[in-house]
């Protein structure tokens, strides 16, 4: 009996081993085939369909199959509210907004309301101002004039390509013609920021030499540089700057597509070349994705049109084409992405991020400044915003936008440095959680906070990663 059992067991073991080996063999053989088929499917999906919320989701689902990723579930209403509030208004929602949304949890309506909210244009104007001229101060630049100009563009829902055209081709006074400040800030070296921000190419190396692995040569850089040869910043009175173009002669500039200008208005023609180009549409789409999801489809956002193309370049291309079809309507694209399931999915629980899923991102200094005041239910003192931003960014003051998320200082230390006293709110634990973290406390958290002074609970919540991160 024992031997028979033993024999059966041995046979069973051998069978199991063989079967496992066979399955493994089939899997290995079929893997590349399945991957290739999935890739074809997603590429076809992107190419065939005009982009809609559903098609983004379909693409991402196919891509997840391709990469063997299990897509996480959607976030609950509270977290969705927090996400879109941070992304569209630049702050966490107030407790009243949370309670109202709980009564009418219509996500599409919410996104529409936030896009029409005045704070939306204010927040995005700050975001783009920092992207365009960094956080640093420059005597020739009127930051507020630029910000207000961008805010008006967002408020009026102006086409984004038209906004960029004006930024690149602007002439006039720094104080009164806000768009001129971008070029005034980069008057000495405009090619690199224009390339990075609007074309998604990095021409930094080409400024000095032909980099062995880079596509762009010094000649390409010089061709681009010539477009700005007629640009003349001037200072008509102390502290006031203007930007004008003069006619220049000599070597004719050349755009990265090889196109040369046909007029004497080189900078204006460059602006037209950029805003009608596909790389511009791709860079814009990828940057928007980057802002909402925490990283670009192609990371970094200023190298989307660089040498190595993303495996999901087709999605970028599809988004870009949709942008062009929508006449670069920024809000339309934001609405579609925010309402996609992709945006609404939880962060990966495995700890590994996947480039087409949202990833946790720390708040920008602007988001942090306003969110802190919202969480503490304190009015915002505008003149402290600049001080806070400088304190929060410290060493990386003049870095481009994407580095602004890399602030390392603990929030408590920052608040101490900024002399921001904590209030002692007369709120229950549940109310405090709603106000700071936009959710209810767990039973355990409720119990732990029960006998604690309110100020301490507030301090703990503000210093939590959950507050500090978009998640």
């Amino acid at each position, binding site marked *: 009996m024992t031997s028979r059992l033993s024999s059966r067991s041995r046979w069973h073991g051998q069978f199991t081993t063989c079967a496992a080996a066979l399955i493994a063999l089939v899997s290995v053989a079929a893997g590349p085939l399945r991957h290739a088929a999935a890739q074809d499917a997603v590429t076809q999906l992107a190419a065939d369909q005009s982009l809609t919320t559903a098609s983004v989701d379909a693409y991402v689902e196919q891509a997840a199959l391709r990469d063997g990723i299990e897509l996480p579930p959607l976030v609950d209403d509270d977290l969705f509210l927090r996400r879109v509030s941070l992304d569209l208004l630049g702050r966490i929602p107030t407790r009243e907004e949370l309670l109202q949304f709980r009564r009418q949890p219509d996500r599409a309506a919410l996104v529409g309301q936030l896009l029409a909210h005045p704070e939306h244009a204010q927040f995005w104007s700050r975001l783009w101002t920092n992207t365009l001229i960094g956080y640093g101060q420059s005597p020739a630049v*009127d*930051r*507020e*004039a630029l910000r*207000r100009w961008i805010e008006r563009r967002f408020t009026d829902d*102006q*086409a984004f*390509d*038209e906004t960029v*055209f*004006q930024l690149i*081709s602007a*002439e*006039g*006074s*720094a*104080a*009164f*013609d*806000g768009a*001129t400040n971008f070029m005034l800030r980069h008057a000495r070296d405009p090619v690199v920021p224009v390339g990075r921000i609007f074309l998604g190419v990095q021409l930094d190396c080409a400024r000095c030499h032909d980099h062995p692995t880079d596509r762009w040569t010094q000649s390409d850089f010089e061709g681009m540089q010539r477009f700005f040869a007629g640009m003349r910043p001037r200072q*008509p*009175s*102390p*502290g*006031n700057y*203007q930007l*004008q*173009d003069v*006619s220049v002669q000599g070597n004719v500039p050349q755009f*990265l*597509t*090889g*196109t040369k200008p*046909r*007029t*004497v*208005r080189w900078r*204006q*023609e460059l602006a*037209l*070349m950029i805003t*009608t*180009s*596909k*790389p511009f549409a791709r860079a814009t789409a990828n940057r928007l994705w980057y802002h909402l999801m925490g990283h670009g489809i192609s990371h970094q956002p200023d190298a989307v*049109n660089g040498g190595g193309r993303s495996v999901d370049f087709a999605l970028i291309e599809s988004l870009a084409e949709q942008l062009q079809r929508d*006449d670069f309507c920024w809000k339309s694209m934001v609405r579609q992405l925010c309402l996609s399931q992709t945006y609404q999915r939880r962060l990966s629980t495995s700890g590994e991020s996947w480039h087409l899923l949202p990833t946790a991102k720390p708040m920008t200094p602007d988001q942090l400044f306003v969110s802190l005041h919202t969480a503490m239910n304190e009015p915002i003192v*505008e*003149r402290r915003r600049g001080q806070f931003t400088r304190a929060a960014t410290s060493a990386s003051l003049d870095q481009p936008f994407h580095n602004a998320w890399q602030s390392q200082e603990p929030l408590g230390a920052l608040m101490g440095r900024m002399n921001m006293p904590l209030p002692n709110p007369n709120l229950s634990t549940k109310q405090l959680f709603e106000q700071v973290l936009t959710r209810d406390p767990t039973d355990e958290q409720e119990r732990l906070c029960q006998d604690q002074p309110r100020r301490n609970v507030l301090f703990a919540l503000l210093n939590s990663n959950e507050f500090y991160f978009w998640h």
Partner: protein
Amino acid sequence: MFDTSSLVELLLWSTLRLSLLVFAVSCVLRLSRVVSPRVHRWLWSAALLQSLILAPWVVSLPVLDLPTATVASPATSALPQISNTRAQPTQLTDAQAQSLDQSIAGGLRPAAWGNPPPRMLIAIWLVGCGAVSVLLAASQWTVWSMLRRAVPARAAWQAQLDGLASQWGLRESVPLRVHHSLGPLLARSPRGYRIIVPRGPWEQLTPGQRQAVLAHELAHLHRGDVWKSLLMRLVAAAHWFNPLAWWAVAKFDEAAEWSCDAVVRQQSDRSAANLAAALLQLTAPSPLVRLGVSSARGNHVGIRVRKLVSSKQDKESKTMKFIALGLAASMLVFGLLRVQLVAQAQTNPPAAASIQQELRALLSTISESEDDLLQDFGETLQSRSGQLILEDHLRRESSAAVQELQANVIDMILDEHFDVTENSARLKTGSEELRERLVAAGKQSQQDMADLLTTCRNLAERLHGDDETTGLVRRFLESNSGATFLYLSVLRDRMQPGMAMFGKSLGKVMAPDTDGTFHIRPDAQERVQAIVDLRETAEKVCGRLHQELASWTGELTPDDEFNQRLKERAQDPLLAALIVAEPLFEKQSVRMSMVHQLLDQLDSLAVDTANGLEIPAESRQEITRLMDRFDAIQARVNVVRQALAEARSKISTSGNLEQEFRRLLETDVALMALSQGTEMANASAEDLVMSVLGEALEQSDGQLTLVKNTDMREKIHEQVQNAMREMRVARRKAGPVRDVAETIDDQELADALRSPGGLLVIKKLAEKKLSDAFHRTYLDWHAEMFSEDAGQLQFRGEHARQLAQDLIDRAQEMDRELSNNDF
């Protein structure tokens, strides 16, 4: 759906017209002294009837220039960024055109239609019309009901009336009714006309008087005055809110009375006298007679009596009648036509408008054309590529013109302002303002330059060294060019009071617009608002602090030099202003409590003794520093005050914040705040020159040498060479100006033309002319390309069509090239 806005507009337009015409008719009748009742009736009825014409025939009268549309401040002469191919905000839409049209025609229309919604206004108007109609109907009903109460007249009275009626040729008898109070009047009842007379007064009249009154009423019947009067009342009902309309109706009725009086008068003088006597006996009628035609309307009875007994009508001039009737006819025409002042169609757009406006106007005109090529051209100009191609074309065209202009611009300016012959020159009439500018600038620069020339020559003498660079610098300083160059390039701003003196402070909050007017910078508006909000508080704190300081220093002892100095300073209100300036401008925080805090601080520094307050020596240092600072500012305060007044005059007066800021700059606190950082305001000529050359010179034992650093010396060498070259060029260019100065009789003007200040004025005029060159090129191009025929824009010949086609082709080529849009 009818457009309520339009209806309100038409109604208001009609009201305005009616009011104007009633006023005009009144004036004409009074001035012309026309007494003919018929003329009066025609004029009043014309004035009333024309108000019914709500939708007149619009006649455009091209007399005005196109008004300027609101555009962003054009910083450059670049072509407008009108729109991309999708967004179309620039081409005038129909609504915009209509709005523009309305704004142009505003001269003849009521300026503002008010804020209430048009529908509400229409509703109010309709309710009013309805109410007045009901009142009219109610009055009519009352008359009818009174008629029912009236009794038939005695047979003799009726027979008298019948006899008269037969004389008038009336086929039907008119019943005569007697009422206890109503009448005499002619009324229309459902059963026909009735003449009503008041029993009491009627019995008092003689038969002749009765006959005259009845003849008067029959004249009303014969003329159909009842219906005419009703018609006028209905017209006035549409203008129920306009008292002038009702007044015109009353005048119309009055003229009807005169007409019927005239009929009686024509019968015989006796009848006229009888009627006059009857009128005087009959009392004023009841208000209910409005819907009848009364022969004894109480008002103006005296006038009627005078007319009845006067002989003037017989002598009235026919010319005056024709004039008055012509006026009546023109009123109707005035009502039928609406003269609308519109932009004068111009082949050459007005020079004052900017290119942005020109192009917008051009696009709006093109959109109305039926020429396919012109339409294509308009579409091309709406695209980015089209605009770039056109601008490129114009810039290439203007390039040659600018070069030509650069060579001749000084001569052109001189030709514009001076009559120059071989041996004499004289200022042209109309250029007096330029003369004033030249003389003022010339005197100022001569005054400034006198010390600078001496200083530069002294420096040249003191400069030691035999090397090439030192020799060059010495030559530069010895020549007039050196001082002139330093003056024009740097020192003029520092020496002359003005906005430039406050660059570090005001420059942070203000910026010049393209026209040179200073505005508050957008990013500084909140800060400036916070400061100007504290102006009144700051002035109060200053006043209080001044009093307290004077009082506190009054107790100081002993009477030594320090205390005396402090007491003197404390008497000056500017010291308090200096103390308040910093918290106001730096921290935007001024409170009355700071007076107490400061006095507490002073108290803590001082010690009370038997003789008074004593400030110990160790506490005097801080106060001494404050007094030194104050004295330094005091020494230049007058210059700074003048500069501040000059700066204030350059601030825009359009914005509220700018106006408040101007007021703030009039205060002592602002003066003291802005005085800081103006150390060069009263510097000597040598200090000023050294502030520029200081880095290049070293001083030891009273001798000056150039710096030893080789790089620095090379830089100095190059800069001085450039400066001398620039001055030589400037001198050559100023040759024609010097020629004029040599031959002109006006010595003051001649001196001004030779001075650096005068030359600077001419240079600015030249720069202005050059900056307008691009605009002029556009105007020339427009004139070359287009002409206008019967209000339609068209190409001026085949050459223009070819040019337009070239531009379209170039834009299409650019678009094709742009389609290569990837890398």
